[in-house]
């Protein structure tokens, strides 16, 4: 046996379970957070509040799950927040004009999807770095939204439509079902389809992926389109929940969505991460903010705490990776 294969034999035991380990640690973090909050305040561990946390996490999750696939390819989509704004405004207009929530929902999804495809084309075909392309897109979308809305809001939708955001089924909020459905769908897509495998391969080494016969451009467009469509989904849930559309609806959501993906273990270098991890990431972020609200901690501390969690989570993975 040569030295190289000797070296190769060693770290398998650890390696096998690294991703699972990461997820396990994160689930442990969620459990500890819940435990700590239950001890700190009675209000936390009630069915209502748990459902409440899940529902709040769902909005973040919709955005972050699409973003996760983009991050898996080594890219970034900074336009998701602005995408929500425009998609919601268009969807709201259509619902108001036609009275048909179905048409409105379709419009919202189509707008999100179209924006995503534009991003994908810029990144895959025009070869503009995703960070800049989607940042430019963010401004363009804001511009269109502001122009279109002219400072107004659109509000008051049919009760049936609003069920998507604020309704319950068997005592559980509808957005939570939607979140679980998309969690399942996203996980199956990423882990159990050949497209998902190809996306991981692209993130791990784009050059090798192309020379392995993976249609890289098409997969990139698919991924950005998916991210855009998920922003469309988020816009519909937003709309149904807030019962109104305004231009800056998703403004403050982009960085938290990226944070959720990072906390969930996604690497900005690509090839590492999972939709389930992002779900946990969104849950952790929401739990912390919920806890701070329940404990009446001054809201000024929120950005600081979020920042520290992001650094901690990523550092934790770095240490784990170095040990293997």
């Amino acid at each position, binding site marked *: 046996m040569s030295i190289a294969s000797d070296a190769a034999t060693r770290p398998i035991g650890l390696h096998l379970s690294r991703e699972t380990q990461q997820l396990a640690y994160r689930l442990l973090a969620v459990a500890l957070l819940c435990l700590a909050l239950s001890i700190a305040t009675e209000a936390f561990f009630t069915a209502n509040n748990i459902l409440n946390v899940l529902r709040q996490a769902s909005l973040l999750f919709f955005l972050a799950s699409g973003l996760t696939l983009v991050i898996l390819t080594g890219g970034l989509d900074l336009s998701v927040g602005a995408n929500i704004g425009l998609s919601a405004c268009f969807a709201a207009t259509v619902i108001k004009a036609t009275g048909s929530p179905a048409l409105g929902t379709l419009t919202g999804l189509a707008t999100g999807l179209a924006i995503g495809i534009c991003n994908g084309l810029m990144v895959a075909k025009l070869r503009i770095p995703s960070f800049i392309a989607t940042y430019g897109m963010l401004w363009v979308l804001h*511009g269109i939204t502001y122009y279109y809305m002219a400072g107004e809001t659109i509000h008051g939708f049919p009760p049936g439509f609003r069920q998507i955001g604020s309704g319950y089924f068997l005592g559980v909020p509808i957005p939570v079902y939607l979140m679980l459905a998309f969690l399942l769908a996203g996980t199956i897509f990423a882990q159990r389809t050949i497209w998902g495998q190809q996306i991981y391969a692209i993130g791990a080494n784009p050059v090798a992926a192309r020379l392995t016969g993976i249609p890289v451009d098409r997969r990139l467009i698919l991924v950005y389109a998916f991210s855009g469509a998920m922003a469309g989904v988020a816009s519909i849930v937003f709309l149904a929940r807030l019962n109104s559309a305004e231009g800056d609806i998703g403004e403050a959501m982009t960085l938290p969505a990226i944070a959720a993906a990072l906390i969930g273990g996604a690497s900005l270098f690509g090839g590492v991460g999972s939709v389930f991890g992002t779900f946990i990431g969104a849950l952790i972020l929401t739990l912390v903010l919920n806890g701070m609200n329940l404990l009446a901690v001054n809201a000024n501390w929120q950005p600081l705490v979020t*920042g520290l969690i992001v650094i901690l989570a990523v550092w934790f993975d770095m240490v784990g990776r170095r040990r293997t």
Partner: protein
Amino acid sequence: MTDQAVSSPLLRLPAVPGVAVALAGLSLLFALASPGFLTAGNLSNVLVQSVILLLLALPMTLIIMTEGLDLSMGAVLTLASLVLALIVVATQSLALGLIGALAVGLAFGLVNGWLIAGLSIPPFVATLGTLGAAQGLALVVSDGQSVVGIPRFVRLVYSGETFGIPTPILIGAGFYALFHVLLYHTRFGTYVCALGGNRDALTLAGVAWKRLLVAVYMLGGAMAGVAALLMTARINAGHPTAAIGLEFDAIAAVALGGTSFDKGNGWLFGTLLGVLTVGVLRNGLNLMAVPSSVQVACIGALVIAALLVDSLRSTRS
């Protein structure tokens, strides 16, 4: 690909960068469309307005050249500005205030550098974290309120003139010259380029690159401190959201200027052009009274278009 041994002579030809085309085109356009644009007063106005962004974009160029990123700059600027305002209000001493602002900037730069060089956390993540920290601290120290009561002489830093030239322009020009010398005429500059291009080369050359990387981020922090002085002087107050998001403008200006995100390929003069292009665009559109929503879309289109030009050129060669 060993077979690509012959380099294209095209690469050595000075191609006209997208940002220069954009700046020239926009200037011409505004000069024709708005009589007010090409006046000494307005041009000096554009320059003065661009200085704060330039002060952030200069170190951002260096940071991006090291294949890094500093998302915390705007928040650190804000925090430093608040600290400066609080100190100046308490002591009436601008010097002490500036020291405080620089200390805040350097401290955050040190933390960024330590996270990135020491703990090997990716720059985007590390500085996203410190962005939150600085923003949170800014809200905490100010409790969300503006800090006012700054003596009027502080205003002169921004609105005064030295040798008949607005002081901010001199400050901006001074720092540009300083960064030019730093990047192109000192060892430090050479090493910054090598930090992004090939860190192993530095190790083999016996250069302690981790310390250098920390120094680059500290430089970024310090410049946020300097920019905080101008920002405080400009608004005559400290405000907890004064410069939120400014780092993205700085990154866009650097990218506009043709600095690429890998291999240490940076162009400082391009950054200056990028900052001016954004400044001219905003100023010109305001002079033309273009609706704000159209302005927003124009900025996005400009960023995409300039990058597209550079991307097309690089695929052609």
